[in-house]
């Protein structure tokens, strides 16, 4: 099979959500000693981009998006150790800190956004749930992150999102570190009112918002 055919199959595996195929092709790429950056950039990434397009057209829904993100992660899990050994680094689309704010233990929505961001090339540092507000900022400074994603599922914990933005302003970090907010009770108005840089109504919108922030 030609290299082009192999790369095309990688993209197809992601679009079709075929985890076994995505993994087996990643193994084949290692055996064939293919250029792993090319494998990611020209094989798998076009697949996940197409998935985003299909979602925008209303042909794909959340389960398909997540299935494709799972496939991407499975393939990356195979490629990553070899890339580290060879000291090759795939180009990150940006660094993101994500977590559910203090007092809130919901995490499935946050995990879905985290998966989608990783699948779309972001370097994601997931701090988990019930994360102290200062911890978001400390971690962002430590890894020089571009974006903090704050999830809140309660009307009470939504206030934590506002507070993080305030702390960033107090520390003069708001130009450097942007904030995306999301969660069931959160809406565009709330995001605007508290001065967030973006609002992730769902996992894919969060990815688009993150991409937009990086492009700006």
């Amino acid at each position, binding site marked *: 099979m030609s290299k082009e055919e192999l790369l095309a199959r990688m993209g197809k595996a992601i679009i079709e*959500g075929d985890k076994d195929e995505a993994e087996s092709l990643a193994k084949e790429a290692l055996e064939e000693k293919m250029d792993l950056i090319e494998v990611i950039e020209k094989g798998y990434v076009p697949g996940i981009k197409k998935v985003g397009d299909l979602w925008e057209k*209303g042909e794909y*829904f*959340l*389960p*398909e998006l*997540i*299935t494709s*993100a*799972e496939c991407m*992660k*499975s393939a990356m899990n195979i490629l990553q150790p070899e890339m580290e050994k060879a000291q090759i680094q795939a180009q990150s689309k940006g660094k993101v800190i994500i977590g559910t704010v*203090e*007092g*809130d*233990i*919901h*995490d*499935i929505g946050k*995990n*879905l956004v985290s*998966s989608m961001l990783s699948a779309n090339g972001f370097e994601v540092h997931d701090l988990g749930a019930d994360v102290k507000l200062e911890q978001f900022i400390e971690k962002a400074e430590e890894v020089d992150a571009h974006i903090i994603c704050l999830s809140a599922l*309660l*009307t*009470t*914990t939504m206030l934590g999102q506002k507070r993080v933005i305030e702390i960033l302003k107090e520390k003069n970090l708001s130009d450097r570190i942007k904030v995306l907010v999301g969660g069931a009770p959160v809406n565009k108005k709330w995001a605007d009112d508290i001065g967030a840089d973006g609002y992730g109504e*769902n996992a894919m919108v969060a990815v688009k918002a993150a991409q937009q922030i990086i492009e700006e």
Partner: protein
Amino acid sequence: MLVMSSRIKRIENLKIEFDEQRIFRLIGYKKKSQEIKEPIKKMIAEEKKKLEYLLHPASIYTILDYNETNKHPVFKDAEKVALCLCTIGPDLEDEINQLMEKNEMVRALILDSLGSEAAEEVAIQSDRRLADMARELRFWPSKRYSPGYGKWDVKEQKYIFQVLPGKDIGVSLTESCMMIPRKSISFRINFYKNKKLTTRKNTIQGKSNDRNNQT
């Protein structure tokens, strides 16, 4: 106020049924089920099967005279107040966590949606029985209201847990007043003498109506 344990009762014979279309909507589909891909449908069926051993629905309640309550303004004008705490138990959430660790996010999402729906079903059935009890006592039941909605602050969860022994059905409260397991619901129903004080559709019975009797 402490309530005598004999006044804490359980809602028995809770049966959980699922509306498949609602599950499709909950996991993010807007289209008809026949257009949903077979692998996803298969996953839904497989996760649904797990519910046989993952769901442990339980519901406890008590009915207090107004003077026995903490007289919070939301109880105003009620002759009696029913307080209720429902859960589906911790096993489903443990399974979701394991699925997420295994990068099985779609299955985790499906199971989470099924769990939300199951918890809601327990609350609906508990609400319906308590409303019937109110009617038997010749009162007009209000809709069900949970802490965190309207003028009943989420901190009032602490009051509910003072009155109802959450530990009896394995439910606890965090510092920030979240319930663990997360798929748990607490609520009140006010019992009124005057029909005009309630907006509950008291004359219409049935599931679809009861689903709307919540705030």
